């Protein structure tokens, strides 16, 4: 086997290995959520800073222009302090945000939140333990997010 072919094969196997590492699980695990992440620009309706898990409810316009209310969960308030320095005042109703979420497999407007930004691009929460996945799956979500943002930014110019 040539060195190049050997290297390509190793990369493929590495991909398999990284896909088989068990994900870091939150209390309920992450089996409720789709693997693919979506981005939604919307307006915060409610920020429930409580245990067992923080909830954010926001409204977003669907393809028909109708406002749809979405719910997304985060980790506990304590964990969010650790992961992003969040507090009870981080979000308030009316805030314009971009929510990056893994939607529910059921198809309902429910989700687990992977990242939060303000509408101007300022980061609110970069890393969400609740969103789960292996490090590689997290990295893949980040790459996809950045690629989508780059494409959107290019489209605006």
């Amino acid at each position, binding site marked *: 086997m040539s060195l190049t072919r050997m290297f390509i094969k190793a990369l493929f196997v590495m991909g398999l290995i990284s896909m088989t590492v068990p994900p870091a699980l939150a209390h309920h695990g992450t089996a409720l959520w789709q693997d693919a992440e979506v981005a939604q620009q919307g307006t915060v309706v409610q920020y429930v800073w409580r245990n067992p898990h923080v909830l954010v409810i926001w409204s977003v316009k669907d393809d028909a222009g109708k406002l749809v209310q979405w719910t997304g969960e985060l980790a506990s308030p304590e964990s969010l302090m650790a992961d992003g*320095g969040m507090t009870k005042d981080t979000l308030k109703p009316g805030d314009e945000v971009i929510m990056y979420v893994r939607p529910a497999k059921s198809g309902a407007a429910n989700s687990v939140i992977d990242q939060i930004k303000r509408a101007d691009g300022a980061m609110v929460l970069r890393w969400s333990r609740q969103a789960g996945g292996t490090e590689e799956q997290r990295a893949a979500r980040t790459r996809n997010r950045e690629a989508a943002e780059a494409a959107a930014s290019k489209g605006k110019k």
Partner: protein
Amino acid sequence: MRKFVISLIAFLPALLSAQFALAQKPGLEVPVVTPGPGWKTCPRCENDAHVAEERKKANVDTHPFDPHDISGVWGDNGIELDLKTLPPFTPYGQMLYDATKSESPDWNSKDPMNICDPLGYPRAFAYNYGMEFIQLPNRTLQFFELSHTWRTIWTDGRKLPSDPPILRFMGYSVGHWEGETFVVEANGFDDRSWVSEDRRGRRHGFPHTSEMRVVEHYKRLDYGRLQATLTVIDPKVYTKPWSTTGIATLRPNAELGEYMCVPSDSISFNNGNTVPADAHK
């Protein structure tokens, strides 16, 4: 050259996963949140980088210590029960385990924690947000952040009750010193709690009966580390004692907060985001 490539291939997964971890996880750029001057953050409110930093500042590796003093706030990660040492169930134990299976493959719908039923012991230790030992002349108190509850370990020489008049979620506990090891024995447990959730698939809990006994050995290895061995003995459920050994780390700059499990909040959370997300309901 061939050897070099083989070595590179062997180490690449570890290197890459370390790189991903470093690139992704929050670190010291996250501010430590406290209630204000003079107040400390809570154990769960710190990320790994915060913890490493505060332990370094406190010189935990070289700080002098008294091996008979186990007081302090100890790490947030609990000591999860060791699945490698999990003994086979008895037929009755298997039946109890099967009965804990959730209706949905996607979440642990039968977990008593969902409605804030008490975690009980040893689940409070295995799944904790930090705990604090406080040593008094006739007892040692073990406070748990998760559920904001405590356990009294009597050290005044009394024996465990042979036939407890009422079962307790946290059990009846007595402790004594054997050299530099604090030994705790406990019984009288309410059998409605789980020993632990089963993290393999998140569909079951490990059950116990009211005849379960728990034996623990705590040894302060140095100022910053507390070794704990916890053994679950319940012959009706497990064919052998089930032992777990782990190390809790001192949190020199943290104090317990108040993680209450509020039934109305938990039920509202489940109905608000978990149940509607379940594709199998």
